[in-house]
């Protein structure tokens, strides 16, 4: 699955698309919010092992295993609004998770960003 050619994220994040968020979109945003809180706390307290484990779990178990699978039916047959909500949710997750991973994986995240 790719972002469509010329995709531009919403300036206001997902504020204007709130009504079109699916259960999966809301779930991954909640997981991301929890990850941001734990990453900040772990980083400040030098718990780098835990921080990396949580980031790994988010990328692999939440984002790749569940959310990307849950996106497929939306991208196949969802409305334009739900597709936009899903793509912007995915963009927010990738953007924030790459930033959080950057201190521990600087080169590859810089390349991907």
């Amino acid at each position, binding site marked *: 699955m790719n972002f469509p050619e010329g995709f531009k994220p919403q300036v206001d994040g997902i504020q204007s698309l709130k009504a079109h968020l699916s*259960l*999966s979109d809301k779930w991954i945003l909640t997981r991301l919010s929890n990850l941001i809180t734990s990453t900040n706390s772990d980083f400040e307290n030098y718990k780098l092992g835990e921080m990396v484990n949580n980031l790994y779990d988010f990328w692999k178990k939440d984002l790749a295993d*569940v959310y990307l699978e*849950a996106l497929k*039916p939306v991208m196949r047959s969802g409305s334009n609004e739900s597709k936009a909500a899903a793509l912007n949710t995915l963009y927010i997750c990738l953007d924030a998770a790459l930033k959080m991973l950057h201190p521990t994986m600087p080169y590859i995240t810089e390349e991907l960003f």
Partner: protein
Amino acid sequence: MKTLNETGKILRSQLASYGVASNAKPTIAVKATNASTHAMFVAEAEVLKSLTKAGELIILRGEEKEPEGCLSGFVSDEITVYVKVIGLIDIKLELARIAKRQKQLTDLKDKLAKKMQAASYMERVPEHVRKADAEKITGYETELATLEGQIVTFTAF
């Protein structure tokens, strides 16, 4: 979403334990006895279908009967999942797996029942732990009953 994920996880591990190929697109059914859980599954059917790579997904109410030739999996007291196995799996291997799980469950249940029958159990164990133990026993009994049903189904194939 937690329930949906858990159900997807159980179904995926059930399919993996049967050795079903990832491109087999099996027919799957989910039975929910609780009305709100049933409504959630209906709303999120396409997501669950994608998570389990199912060819067909049937959502059933508590009183509805599952399709013929299905093996069940246990998610919770309220949710049971079914995979249509005719033409998909090796029955001998599956019967051995059920026997092993039955033994595990019976051991766990007996151990817990023995602990609960001890004279000091009511005095020394806090109420929330007693409640959790009682729920565990119910869970074991439900799963054992499900497994008994599976043996009957298998031997009928």
